[in-house]
């Protein structure tokens, strides 16, 4: 008994001590955690002295701006941040989040009135109607209509239609993250990348990497069977896609011959009326082709398990996948090829990650390409921000769009990371790795600086830190698509329409995908058509409500030119 009492007393004593100790340590560590000073390595201190002190250090008032971002911890504690925060006398409070939970967080924050000062979110069919509701509820502050003080932003707004799309009640409420080449109408370079070195090894590579559908599928089959990567039996797989292109990219897109693309907009205009694309014959044909690919083992069987869109690349980088669907932008080409070169230093860096052009399964001469909504994400300023905060945000935005800003975000600091030659060309001072590729000193640290213009925009063409081969290949692919492919257009009119039923029921995109995936895997060639028809019919009561809304819109575009004319005529 006595012994137990002693045990008890010591336990309580220990607990109490721990309590007190922990209390002390937390109160001691917490402030240092929040305004943590980077343990400045020698290189960084050099920067702060050498780098030209910001000339327009006219910001007397220090402002903090909270902003949600992935890899939040990588954004601070580096020379880029030190320079940037000094220049604008700003402290960025980066709110950490995972890419996969961005919708959830935006919804929670908006619904509880706890938005970051600058909210980054998708602005596409998934969440656009909700965003409209939030704007109408007064959660966001408009971008000033008079942009004289911010000429670069004004320029950007002139060259894109994002500001028109995000205008409600006469004011623009979002700073769009621009992507893709404005000179080419924002055609997104959705493509297939593949192991050209394997094709070469099997003697099946085509000139310029242009394939007919059957040629390419035969190549994949050959790779799976003959195992050019020497992985062992059953360890080489066919083709994979990120979750947002699965299964559409594998046969369903390529049978669409209409003017309109349909990844997000599942409704397209046929003969002046909106139609739910999944009920068309073209969709059925595409679905059957995808089913055949799955049955033949060409589609990577686990693609559907990859709900976070992470694993589809893993096998490619491990050298087990023949091809994958990918935005073959210059930035992606660079990072993909770097990854491959890290894993397989003896093989040709470019050939391991090469863009293939693959025709439609219906027609060897028909190449389908799709336009993407040009701004898949945007930044909105919270209505709770002060004038000083808003101005600072626009100042930063404006500066990031200047040539100096672009250099800052591509290369870093003048003097340490690059020097500017007299003719305006840039000389990069970064280290190179064994392959002769520049090593980025700030990996993952550019989350915010890249917001105004996304990495995959045409600026990448001029970025000397990217190997020339990647820039040439990326641009070649763009031009090729522009010249040779039929480009399915985005119907902004429908995508950004706000009607009662569309706002509550949505566009059924995830439902259609989920059902297509289910049938792809768990139906048979013979029954898939009947199964699909039965399902679309069961959905019709709900879908019809949205269709009716859309068909009652004031304007239904007859062609893309018509749409653009209508949109530019409006303002």
């Amino acid at each position: 008994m006595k012994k137990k009492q002693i045990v008890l007393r010591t336990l309580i004593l220990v607990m109490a001590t721990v309590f007190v100790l922990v209390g002390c340590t937390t109160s001691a560590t917490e402030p240092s955690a929040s305004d943590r000073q980077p343990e400045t390595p020698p290189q960084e201190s050099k920067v702060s002295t050498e780098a030209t002190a910001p000339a327009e250090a006219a910001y007397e008032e220090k402002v903090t701006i909270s902003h949600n971002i992935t890899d939040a911890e990588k954004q601070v504690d580096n020379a880029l941040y030190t320079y940037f925060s000094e220049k604008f006398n700003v402290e960025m409070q980066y709110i950490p989040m995972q890419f996969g939970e961005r919708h959830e967080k935006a919804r929670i924050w908006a619904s509880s009135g706890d938005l970051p000062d600058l909210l980054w979110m998708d602005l596409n069919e998934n969440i656009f109607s909700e965003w409209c509701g939030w704007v109408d509820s007064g959660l966001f502050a408009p971008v000033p209509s008079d942009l004289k003080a911010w000429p670069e932003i004004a320029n950007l707004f002139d060259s894109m239609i994002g500001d028109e799309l995000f205008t409600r009640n006469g004011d623009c409420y979002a700073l769009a993250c621009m992507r893709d080449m404005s000179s080419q109408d924002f055609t997104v370079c959705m493509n297939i990348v593949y192991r050209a070195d394997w094709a070469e090894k099997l003697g099946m590579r085509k000139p310029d990497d242009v394939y007919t559908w059957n040629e390419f599928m035969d190549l994949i089959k050959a790779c799976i069977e003959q195992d050019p990567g020497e992985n062992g039996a059953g360890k080489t797989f066919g083709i994979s896609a990120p979750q947002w292109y699965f299964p559409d990219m594998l046969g369903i897109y390529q049978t669409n011959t209409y003017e309109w693309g349909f990844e997000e907009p599942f409704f397209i205009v046929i003969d002046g009326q909106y139609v739910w694309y999944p009920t068309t014959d073209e969709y059925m044909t595409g679905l059957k082709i995808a089913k055949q690919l799955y049955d033949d083992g060409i589609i990577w069987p686990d693609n559907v398990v990859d709900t976070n869109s992470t694993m589809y690349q893993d096998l490619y980088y491990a050298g087990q996948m023949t091809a994958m669907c990918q935005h073959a932008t210059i930035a992606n080409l660079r990072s993909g090829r770097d990854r491959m070169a890290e894993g397989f230093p003896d093989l040709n860096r470019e050939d391991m990650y090469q863009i293939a052009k693959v025709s439609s399964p219906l027609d060897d001469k028909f190449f389908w390409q799709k336009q993407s909504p040009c701004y898949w994400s945007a930044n909105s300023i919270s209505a709770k921000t002060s004038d000083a905060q808003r101005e600072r945000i626009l100042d930063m935005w404006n500066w990031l769009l200047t040539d100096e800003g672009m250099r800052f975000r591509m290369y870093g600091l003048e003097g340490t990371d690059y020097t500017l030659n007299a003719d305006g060309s840039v000389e990069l001072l970064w280290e190179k790795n064994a392959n002769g590729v520049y090593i980025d000193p700030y990996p993952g640290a550019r989350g915010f600086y890249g917001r105004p213009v996304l990495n995959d925009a045409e600026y990448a063409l001029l970025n000397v830190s990217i190997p020339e081969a990647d820039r040439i290949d990326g641009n070649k692919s763009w031009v090729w698509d522009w010249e040779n492919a039929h480009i399915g257009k985005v119907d902004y009119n429908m995508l950004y329409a706000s009607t009662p039923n569309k706002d509550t029921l949505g566009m059924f995109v995830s439902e259609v995908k989920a059902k297509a995936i289910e049938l792809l895997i768990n139906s048979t060639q013979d029954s898939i058509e009947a199964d699909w028809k039965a399902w679309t019919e069961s959905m019709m009561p709900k879908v019809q409500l949205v269709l009716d809304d859309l068909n009652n819109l004031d304007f239904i575009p007859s062609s893309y030119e018509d749409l653009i004319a209508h949109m530019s005529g409006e303002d």
Partner: protein
Amino acid sequence: MTTLAKRNMRNQIVRNNWFDIINILFMSIFALLILYPFYNSILVSFTPQADYVKTPFMLFPKNLTLTSYQIVFESKVIFTGLGVTIIITLFGVVYNMILTVLMAYCFNNEFPGKKFFLYAVIFTMYFNGGLIPYYLLIKDMGLMDTLMSMVLPTGISIMYMTVMRKYFASLPVELEESARIDGASDLVILFRIILPLSMPMVVTFTLYYGIERWNEWWNGMLFIKTAYKQPLQLVLRGIIQSTGAQVMSSHLQEAGIVPFTDGVKMASIVITMFPVMCLYPFMQKYFVQGLAIGGVKG
């Protein structure tokens, strides 16, 4: 004893042995079935990518590598996350235990309104206001972006409280009664008589709560707005769910490290399990007895 009986006995022993062997065999197979996934994760986390890809079925490693761990530990937030998790675990367990023990003791007593309070508590298991009011509450309490937002809302597990109450009820009444006659107050009875008798129980539930707090990520995901205040599990969850195209730091790139995504994921899983794995075999007695006691009484 007759010879017949002796023979009977001998037969039985032989039969018993057969049963034993099959039984032990069966138990061992089941144990291997449970162990294998862990073994596989550890194996993958220490294997270089090339080995993993090229081996048809890997049972033993050919080469060992630490690169997956190197990549995980590259992230500074792993270490701050560990600190955060230790703090919320210590605070949380003390807080949970105090609340739970007090409530269990009270509900083990009779007092006017007991039924009402008990049902009021159980009611909360089935009805809740949902996410938005919960979020607003934490915000209005000023807990947003504090470590306490991961501690205070955890409070009492009704199940643990019930088991503890049933355990208290099973203690001999006489001690408590005689103490009452001597004029001891409730506090004295609880801390001098009941708790010393319930030490195994207290240890058990301390451990249960400890594990729950250690695994905390949901409140962290909702309320933490600073990278360095994220708990370990949230950080590791991020690594497990992040993309294969993750960028490595420049000095790992310079070192020519070959990143192996599966390996990195498994390494983070192993790191997460590690403390529990180390602690568990030694603490098993305590883990088990709580449930055993609760179950028998329940």
